[in-house]
């Protein structure tokens, strides 16, 4: 099987320097934040690839690079062999862009409140001069709303219904890939299950590929075929779902799993993880996890671990086995 999306040595830096004058007065150097650092992975066609990690780990930044909302600083993202950042053939760029859509976390912020649902959904197609009659109505029914909802405004819908509208809009241009950035994090559990089921159904019906971003391990475990774990912009572990959940190899993945609250763990006394995620502007040397790692050795603070293949798992840790 060939990869539909192929990400190689992806790095994204942001300039977070203070304004020029402050730098001169306070004698500061330019400051850069590395949001994504040397990340490589593949996404198979028709699969769900999940990125997990805590806040600031670089999940959304990778998602935005994949859909072309922000360029990489280094490395490449190839979609079906085409690299949007370097491709010169405008028609090809257009074709690839049509194949990939994004759904965001906040269904309230991502719908224009002054537009009717019909226009919101049809917009991506209308913008290209495509045929839009009946399109919104058909898609609304596909996502479990009714055709009559097309003439309403976003404020008339609940959070879960709005996320359905976002999904309908994403489907309008008949994409192959949908990047979903925390699509259910703003929703209640009972509504979340409706939306996740819908996403599973649509995936089967249209043969979609998802890049599914989430910090919720239980959701990821339900949705994903393959999972990448990010820490401070670095991919620390990557494995098929079952391998990751039954045998996590990276100490950070193990820490995440232990800390996640469990519905069947009545009165469990967790020994909570120590410390917090360090500042991404000055990440720790070597393995970025070493200040919090319970099994760190001397080498860990000196040498950044390479990705190694252990069984079905890729892991970046000197001590993983």
């Amino acid at each position, binding site marked *: 099987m060939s990869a539909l999306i192929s990400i190689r040595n992806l790095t994204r830096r942001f300039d977070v320097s203070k304004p020029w004058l402050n730098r001169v007065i306070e004698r500061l150097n330019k400051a850069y934040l590395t949001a994504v650092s040397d990340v490589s992975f593949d996404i198979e066609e028709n699969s769900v690839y999940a990125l997990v990690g805590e806040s600031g780990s670089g999940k959304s930044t990778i998602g935005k690079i994949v859909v072309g909302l922000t360029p990489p600083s280094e490395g490449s993202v190839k979609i079906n062999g085409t690299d949007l950042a370097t491709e010169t053939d405008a028609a090809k760029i257009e074709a690839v862009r049509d194949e990939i859509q994004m759904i965001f976390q906040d269904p309230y912020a991502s719908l224009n409140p002054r537009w009717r649902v019909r226009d919101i959904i049809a917009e991506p197609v209308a913008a290209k001069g495509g045929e839009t009659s009946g399109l919104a109505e058909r898609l609304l029914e596909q996502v479990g709303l009714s055709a009559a909802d097309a003439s309403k405004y976003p404020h008339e819908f*609940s959070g879960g219904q709005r996320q359905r509208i976002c999904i309908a809009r994403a489907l309008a241009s008949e994409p192959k890939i949908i990047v979903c950035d925390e699509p259910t994090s703003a929703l209640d559990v009972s509504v979340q*299950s409706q939306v996740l*089921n819908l996403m599973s159904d649509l995936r089967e019906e249209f043969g979609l590929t998802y890049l599914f971003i989430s910090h919720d391990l239980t959701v990821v*475990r339900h949705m994903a075929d393959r999972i990448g774990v990010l820490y401070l912009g670095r991919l620390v572990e990557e494995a098929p779902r079952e391998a990751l959940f039954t045998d996590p190899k990276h100490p950070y993945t193990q820490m995440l799993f232990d*800390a996640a*609250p469990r519905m069947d763990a*009545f009165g469990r006394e*967790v020994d909570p993880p120590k410390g917090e995620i360090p500042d991404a502007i000055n990440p720790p040397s070597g393995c970025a996890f070493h200040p919090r790692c319970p099994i760190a050795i001397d080498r860990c603070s000196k040498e950044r671990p390479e990705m190694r293949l252990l069984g079905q798992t890729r892991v970046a840790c000197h001590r993983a086995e």
Partner: protein
Amino acid sequence: MTDTPTLSVRDLTVEIPTRHGILRPVDHVSYDIRAGEILGVVGESGAGKSMTGNAVIGLLDPPARITGGEVLLKGEPIHDIPRARLRRLRGKHMGMIFQDPLTSLNPLLTIGDQLTETITEHLNVGQDEARKRAIAALDEVGIPAASARIGSYPHEFSGGMRQRVVIALALCAEPELVIADEPTTALDVSVQAQIVALLKRLCRERGVAVMLVTHDMGVIAEAADRVAVMYAGRLAELGPVREVITNAHHPYTAGLMASTPLASVGQKRLKQIPGAMPRLGALPDGCAFHPRCEYAQDKCRRDPGPSLQACDGRAACWFPLGTTQKEDTVA
């Protein structure tokens, strides 16, 4: 030790007058929290969790107001006392922790000033002693180098550290009751685990009664002693946490538990409750859950919503699950 619960809420009702009529975001809610006990409160957004908490501590935004029932703090009514007295009770006897730590912190004051101010206001101690206690409070919630950080401003802390400061602030006057409204929702799992462990420890060591509002069933299972499930302004179910999660009596609770991804590990589809919670202005007659309830019968649609007493104080349902009453109606 006395038998009087730290907090007793009796038939608490909150109403909001609007152009379209009176809304009732909290409708005859009753529960107790004892010293050293954590009561978890769950339910979907808009169910009335925050309104209940705010009504208890007297922080309802007008025009919302308590129109019925009572709130007793160690047996003393506090729902109808003058605002100034209530303000003194808050801080001294009741601490609050909200989802966004910045709403509880003054950005212009150092955290040390905020803590000492609260301590001197509510406890009979001088500046030096207050400062000492402030440092001890920060130390207790796990702020490293507390004596050095006491001069820092809120923006100099990360989100997790800020929430610790808020907890220190909520606890520094040694209150008997703490209302924590989604205290970890904005935090990462590892920080959430730290904060939950901290709340549990403080509750146990100091005998504080805690009302913990969260939508995370995992947090409830690990932290709470009992859990209250709210739906459309009413208590749907109330009971020991293990009982409620593993053997729900109210069909809504059962649906809620079943729809979490953990309940369907290895299954292709998640269980889902059809439909959505009705808006307050458009509550159906009878049991508010009946349009979504797979067990609904004529009585549910016809008779006024059942009270918790319908099922031994456990579930507000005419035909509770897992009880003989249910089997009778099936037979």
